[in-house]
């Protein structure tokens, strides 16, 4: 798509984000009671991130690909382990990229 569409999409995303942040500061009073809204929102990060990761790693050309020659799958597993052990974004990226490069060099 064109740069114009890219710009407009960015502005729309910026506006949505800004309006969310402005909502209660501007005087909004409605908030689902009993911390329910808060309880629900804690599942946004794991759900959205997992939904974005899975197809990116496990699908190729629109087909599920969990064969052993799916190098990105192995690199992602290494990254998962690194993230779990270190809890660092940089260490996770480093582990995943290095494993991907090593596997690409070997195959």
């Amino acid at each position, binding site marked *: *798509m064109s*740069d114009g569409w*890219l*710009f*407009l*999409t*960015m502005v*729309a*995303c*910026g506006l*949505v*984000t*800004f309006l*969310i*942040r*402005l*909502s*209660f*500061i501007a005087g*909004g009073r409605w*908030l689902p009671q009993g911390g329910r*809204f808060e*309880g*629900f929102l*804690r*599942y*946004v*990060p*794991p*759900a*959205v*991130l*997992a*939904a*974005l*990761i*899975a*197809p*990116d*790693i*496990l*699908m190729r050309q*629109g087909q*599920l690909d969990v064969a052993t020659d799916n190098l*990105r799958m192995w690199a*992602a597993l290494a*990254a998962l382990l690194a*993230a*779990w052990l270190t*809890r*660092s*974004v*940089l260490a*996770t*990226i480093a582990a*995943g*990229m290095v494993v*991907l*490069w090593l596997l*690409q060099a070997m195959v």
Partner: protein
Amino acid sequence: MHRPDLPVHGPMDEFLAGVRAEVPLLLGVVPFGLIYGVLGLAAGLPGWAVVLMSSVVFGGSSQVVFAQLWGAAVPPAVITATVGVVNARHALYSASVAPFLRQLSWRWKILLAYLLTDEAYAMAIVRMRDGAPSAHRHFFLLGTGLTLWTGWQLSSLGGVLIGAAIPASWSLDFSIPLTFIALLVMAARGRSEVIAALVAAAAALALQGMPHKLWIIAAAAAGMAAGWIARGLNRRTP
């Protein structure tokens, strides 16, 4: 340092105290900004868009999500909805700081709402809620917000400059899912979060056939519902 029990806080004192409180957080924000800049280019966004988005959207994870979805040719409406979902938590911050900003002019409210990010909020709410009452305490939030804003703009610009020098053969676009993996592991603290992630991942794979790439929203909703239900069941068992 300013003792919080001192009765009088001028605007400049509050502002500088906010800046000082926020600076240590830049240790985490600057590497993330660099990563965002590099992978924004790797995802196929032009450099101007990667840099401009840092001020137009100003929300780290949502900008990375935007870059990935744009690179995958997802329709603009679905990208906007997904960014809205990712940033929905900011409504909680808005509700939390609102009582302290009630007396301010619209100009202030708009400015502070724009600057209300995770890190700026986290530092400012401590000052607002627990610190001494002061007519100028919104300057503290201005200090944390502007410090974070500056660090984010400079580091994403730096990332674009670094990213432009990295050849495509390095498969650096792969750093996007890797970043998400790191954020996911940090977000998945309990069993119900892990269930939310697993259900969302399975739904994302199963629903690929949906038109307009709506599987992103559908899978996220399925995961959130699963996490919510799992927590409810967990509570009931003794």
